């Protein structure tokens, strides 16, 4: 926060009441963003908060339904990336979107190479490239070498240099640090601070709290497509920021907790020192039948990685697993399924539904996979199974022969749930079971989680909705920076205690 220019000038960019819907789903609801020259503006929010939609509107990938965008006081509507660049908005994405097989200079000038007699003037291009890169501390870089021969951090800076050279007013950095190590992050931050000092408005998207506090001047938080607030970073504590991102109403919390004293059954599975380097630090976990283990943590805290490990999608590089007192190896999903595990993944579309297949086929698939291809369920068995779950879970579909992609998000989620219930599982892992689901279905899924638990099923539920976790969890694991940092049990479980554990300073043991 040093060398900060006080934003006394008028804003570079003002986005006001931006609204955007896809079909009937409103993903941005009257969201605003004001960028001052010479500020680093952190844009925060969980998955589905609307960050990326807002960025795509600013860079011309999407067009907003209503609202205004002003650059230096002039109304604009970016048509596409090129147009956005002309208007002064440049973007650098998490995955460097340059061409590693071209030279550094070519990457900087691609599409606008200086020419002489109609041919590319290579010498001039390389001279100009060095001039562009000089202020970034990369004056010694060999601009005629392939971009791919440099580290991701250098590529990232080259991408920034190109974006700034093309646009020059607003620079959007979409999770620029996701694939950088600590030293590289420092280098990147130095570059960003220099650009800030030169008067650029920088939008910084990240999931790392520390980086927000280290770099940002102001913070705008989105949640569920709505603007939660926009504040100078100096006015916020970690706790307040986490509260903006995750929690909305602490007041009606007390009424929510349903399961204070659920009897714990016998031990089903034990994971000891279970971990995978770079994904999730080794953790210990005991799962008893009839309990809900809630998992809370910000995006990128290792929640999904933990679930993938438990279900055998990824294999651990440390630790051991025991199920029913017997040592087991979970190397693939099939191994976990054979032990009675089930997994409703976070990304329903890519990992959950089989869009073109029918509701019936989507329900019977896991059971059929376990039986093997040679022992098919008869059509009648399949139809009975599907009918049973359509009724039991109140899945709204015209017929079980309907392709699942035609169902709403909540009903798709119920079908995936039915797919696992059909295998009569003992341990069900639910990753964000209520994401992208309307309010009615939301409540139903929570009721279902409670009912399944009462029937003796063990559940492992990951959610960004803290009230939800508090409502159904027997105990709660809190994750931060790919580590289990806290386990809350019994009366300790509350949204306040979870948020406190998430917001604790790194290194500090959340007490």
């Amino acid at each position, binding site marked *: 926060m040093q060398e900060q220019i006080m934003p006394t000038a008028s804003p570079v960019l003002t986005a006001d009441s931006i609204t955007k*819907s*896809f*079909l*009937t*789903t*409103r*993903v941005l609801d009257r969201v605003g963003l004001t960028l001052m020259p010479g500020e680093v503006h952190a844009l925060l929010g969980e*998955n*589905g908060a*609307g960050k990326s939609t807002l960025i795509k509107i600013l860079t011309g990938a999407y067009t907003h339904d209503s609202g205004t965008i002003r650059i230096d006081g002039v109304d604009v509507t970016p048509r596409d990336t090129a147009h956005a660049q002309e208007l002064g908005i440049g973007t650098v994405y998490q995955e460097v979107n340059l061409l590693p097989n071209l030279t550094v200079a070519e990457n900087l000038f691609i599409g606008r190479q200086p020419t002489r007699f109609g041919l590319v003037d290579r010498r001039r291009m390389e001279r100009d490239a060095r001039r562009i890169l000089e202020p970034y501390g990369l004056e010694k870089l060999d601009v005629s070498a392939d971009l791919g021969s440099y580290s991701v951090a250098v590529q990232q800076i080259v991408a920034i240099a190109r974006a700034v050279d093309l646009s020059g007013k607003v620079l959007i950095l979409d999770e620029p640090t996701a694939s950088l190590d600590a030293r590289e992050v420092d280098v990147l931050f130095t570059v960003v601070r220099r650009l800030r000092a030169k008067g650029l408005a920088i939008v910084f998207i990240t999931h790392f709290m520390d980086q927000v506090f280290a770099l940002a001047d102001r913070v705008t938080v989105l949640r*569920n*497509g709505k603007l939660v607030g926009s504040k100078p970073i100096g006015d916020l504590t970690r706790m307040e920021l986490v509260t903006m991102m995750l929690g909305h109403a602490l007041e009606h919390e007390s009424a929510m907790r349903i399961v204070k004293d659920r009897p714990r059954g016998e031990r089903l599975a034990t994971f000891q020192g279970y971990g995978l380097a770079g994904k999730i630090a080794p953790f210990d976990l005991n799962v008893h039948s009839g309990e809900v283990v809630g998992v809370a943590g910000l995006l990128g805290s290792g929640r999904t990685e933990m679930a993938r490990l438990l*279900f055998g*999608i990824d294999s651990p590089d440390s630790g051991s697993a025991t199920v029913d007192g017997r040592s087991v190896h979970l190397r*693939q*999903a*099939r191994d976990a*399924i054979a032990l009675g595990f089930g*997994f409703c*993944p*976070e*990304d*329903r*579309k*890519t*990992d*959950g*539904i*089989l*869009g*073109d*297949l029918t509701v019936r*086929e989507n329900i019977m*698939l*896991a059971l*059929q*996979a*376990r*039986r*093997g*291809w*040679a*022992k*098919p*369920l008869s059509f009648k068995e399949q139809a009975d199974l599907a009918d049973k779950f359509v009724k039991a879970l109140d899945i709204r579909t015209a017929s079980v022969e309907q392709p699942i992609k035609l169902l709403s*998000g909540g009903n798709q989620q119920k079908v995936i749930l039915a*797919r696992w219930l059909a295998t009569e599982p003992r341990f069900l892992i639910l990753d*964000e079971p209520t*994401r*992208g*689901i*309307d*309010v*009615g279905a*939301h409540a139903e899924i929570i009721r279902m989680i409670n009912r399944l638990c009462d029937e003796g099923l063990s559940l492992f539920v990951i959610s960004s909705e803290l009230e939800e976790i508090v409502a159904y969890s027997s105990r709660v694991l809190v994750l931060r920076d790919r580590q289990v940092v806290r386990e809350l049990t019994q009366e300790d479980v509350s949204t306040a205690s979870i948020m406190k554990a998430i917001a604790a300073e790194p290194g500090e043991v959340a007490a």
Partner: protein
Amino acid sequence: MKWIKPQYIAFLIVLLLNFALFRGFFTISIQDGRLFGSLIDVFNRGAPVAILAVGMTAVIATKGVDLSVGAVMAVAGAVAASLIQSGQPLGIVILAALGIGLLCGLWNGFLVAVLDLQPIIATLILMVAGRGIAQLMTEGRIVTFNDPGLIYIGSGALLTIPMPVVIAGVLMVVATLIMRRTALGLFIESIGVNRSASTYAGLRSKTLLIGVYAFCGLCASIAGLIAAADIRGADANNAGLWLELDAILAVVIGGTSLLGGRFSIPLSVLGALIIQGMNTGILLSGFPSEFNLIVKAFVVIVILMVQSPIVGNILTFMRPTPAPTAVPAPGEKTS
């Protein structure tokens, strides 16, 4: 009228056009205990592509493609011709030819499923290398043979029906039964629709993919045996040349999307017959056979246009608009 598929109508139109060009098209006679006639010819000549299409259907249903089937035909033919020449018994010869096809398919499956190469590139390797291997085996010559057993596969007849037609028919029926009477067909469709979700649901996606490519290789070697037996020799340069494209076209005409998912083996076989019907028609019409390529290209364009989402949108757009859907449910969002 759901059971009337556009492919039935297309086949009928092709046959009627043939009849319009050549009045004797539907005339069938029996000579030497074998059916003869233009219509029989369509089936007989269409059999190799139909056999390729059976295997190709399974591959395309997994969202893949196998460009190597033409080359595998040449390899299988070369193996059969070389072995029968060196005096091996017919059983061994056939097993060896089918075995080499299976092996080629396993190789493709390994590249696609284990190394995760894009199918079009993975199978391109064998498309190029396979023909080279076949040419090395035959030392660039056409290896001829006159073993009656082997020749029977190409030009014999069973109950007056030409052998290639019998083999294609049996293969089609058996493959369809295996796919649909077990859960195999569903699993293949699942992988094609969403491989990741299928793996999450507990399918052995890799094993299934390897199996599908191996099956496709097996089909290609059967087609290769027929092609070699038909000309009584293995022509490494021309056997199965460009037939991979006909096989892909047949599958696409049969309604299996190149994006994977739902498939129908019988409709793919019908697709192969439609292609052969067009070939025959152009021959009968007296147009130079080069026209065939242009007609085929035109058919491909039409089919791909019908499958393209953009055209789909235009067609939907032209339909009467449904009433606008209700206001968004509160709190609903995208993931």
